[in-house]
């Protein structure tokens, strides 16, 4: 029986305390030591996981700059390069337009290049000032490095690395090896580098995107051995940087052109009402070139201009009409 006044806890109070202060402190220290150990292990695991995932991300996104070490650049003089380019081999003289792949078989992603392309008007070349050079991130040193190291059969390819938000310029050798040259923030890369005379130093293909179809904007910049002309394909970024030139260029009409088996380029030009007096070929800088030209009127109202020229070049064609007016247009031979 339990009464209201009965002290239920008297028995508990009589019990001696069976945990001493020293035991409590020892247990507290043991718990603390265990927690510290667990925390240290967790930190080490965390560091390992972060480092491992960073390394994995780096390896997955890397375009392998190691390759460039394993395959040192092959030095070649500009003269040698031009001799090789001016003799492009049998593939360049095949008869049909757009049907002839000029790419290396080791790179199936790249689409065939058009053999010849003419634009209905010729644009004034934009001279790059500091602002344009900055906006377009023009790296003359890299351009000249590529010019030095590439060999016949090599292709220069711009690769967009979305993971790292950058664009890398690679040189793909004829054998399939790839060398990374330079990487920058994603910017429009030129599709062709020429000298002011129109001679092509090299073309730059854009991996994963259709090959250039024009319209083009030309930007002239100075290099260590004279001026260079960088030919850009108009896109949204270029429209922002060079709005006037892009707008003017986008309004152009593409002319039909093709290569013939006799290494002659044929351009189909609407004749118009007034007869022609002369057709001349000029370098982008305006200097006249001694390239033989013939034109043949057709009954469908067009004129076929025949140029004895099949090597890669970018030129200006000037057509003088009988009334003294001159039409200028850009002609690109791949």
């Amino acid at each position, binding site marked *: *029986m*339990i*009464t*209201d006044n009965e*002290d*239920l*806890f008297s*028995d*508990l*109070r*009589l*019990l*001696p*305390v*069976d*945990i001493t*202060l020293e*035991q*409590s*402190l020892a*247990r*507290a*220290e*043991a*718990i*603390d*030591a265990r927690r*510290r150990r667990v925390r240290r292990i967790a930190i080490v695991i965390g560091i390992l996981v972060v480092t491992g995932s960073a390394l994995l991300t780096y390896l997955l996104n890397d375009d392998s700059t190691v390759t460039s070490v394993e395959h040192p650049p092959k030095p070649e003089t500009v003269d040698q390069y031009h001799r090789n380019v001016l003799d492009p081999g049998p593939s360049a003289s095949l008869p049909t337009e757009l049907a002839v792949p000029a790419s290396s078989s080791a790179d199936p992603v790249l689409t065939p290049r058009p053999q010849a392309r003419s634009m209905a008007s010729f644009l004034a070349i934009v001279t790059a000032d500091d602002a344009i050079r900055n906006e377009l991130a023009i790296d003359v040193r890299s351009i000249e490095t590529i010019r030095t190291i590439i060999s016949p059969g090599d292709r220069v390819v711009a690769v967009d690395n979305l993971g790292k938000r950058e664009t890398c310029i690679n040189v793909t050798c004829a054998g399939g090896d790839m060398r990374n040259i330079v990487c920058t923030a994603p910017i429009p890369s030129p599709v062709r580098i020429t000298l002011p005379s129109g001679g092509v130093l090299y073309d730059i293909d854009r991996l994963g995107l259709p090959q250039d179809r024009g319209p083009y904007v030309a930007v002239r910049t100075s290099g260590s051995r004279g001026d260079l002309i960088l030919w850009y394909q108009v896109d949204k970024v270029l429209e922002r940087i060079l709005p006037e030139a892009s707008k003017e260029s986008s309004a152009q009409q593409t002319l039909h052109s093709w290569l013939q088996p006799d290494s002659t380029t044929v351009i189909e030009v609407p004749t118009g009402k007034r007869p022609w007096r002369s057709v001349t070929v000029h370098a982008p800088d305006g200097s006249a070139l001694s390239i033989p030209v013939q034109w043949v009127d057709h009954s469908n109202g067009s004129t076929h201009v025949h140029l004895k020229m099949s090597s890669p070049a970018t030129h200006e064609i000037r057509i003088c009409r009988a009334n003294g007016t001159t039409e200028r247009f850009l002609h690109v031979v791949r």
Partner: protein
Amino acid sequence: MSNSLRNDPAFLEALALHHDDLVRFARSLTRSRDDAQDLVAETILKALESWHTVRDTGAFRVYVFRIAHRLYMRQQLRRRLFHPWPEDYDTTSSDPLPDVMTDATLIREAMQKLPARHRECLIMVDLLGWSLAEVVEVHGGTIGGLKARLFRAREALKNAITGGHDDH
């Protein structure tokens, strides 16, 4: 932590004053000596972390028991979530008197049937002799509420001991 645990004489001195009450409190709340020792050790570690904020050493008792109360409530919650099965009651003790031991064991077993907050009130007021105001400082609430809780707790404890057949 270990170094400062041993190297803080003021903390050790304050702790030594209330250690035995803290152990009684823990022993009455938990089901085993091991659990009680863990609760006391955790309370000491936690108390040392914020020891520098206790300006009045007179408030140390309330400070330490408030920590013990919160840790115990957290353990209870964790136990309900992860270990819902009942545990065996630990009757081991260093007590040399078997009859006292038996009665104490009976009361402890009966206490385990009470809700945790009722158990705590009973221990603090009836076992450790705290004032109602001090208990309110630890648990929060009002003195009126605490009195009602104490009444219900005492009734429940008596019923638990007698098995609901109290014929007083």
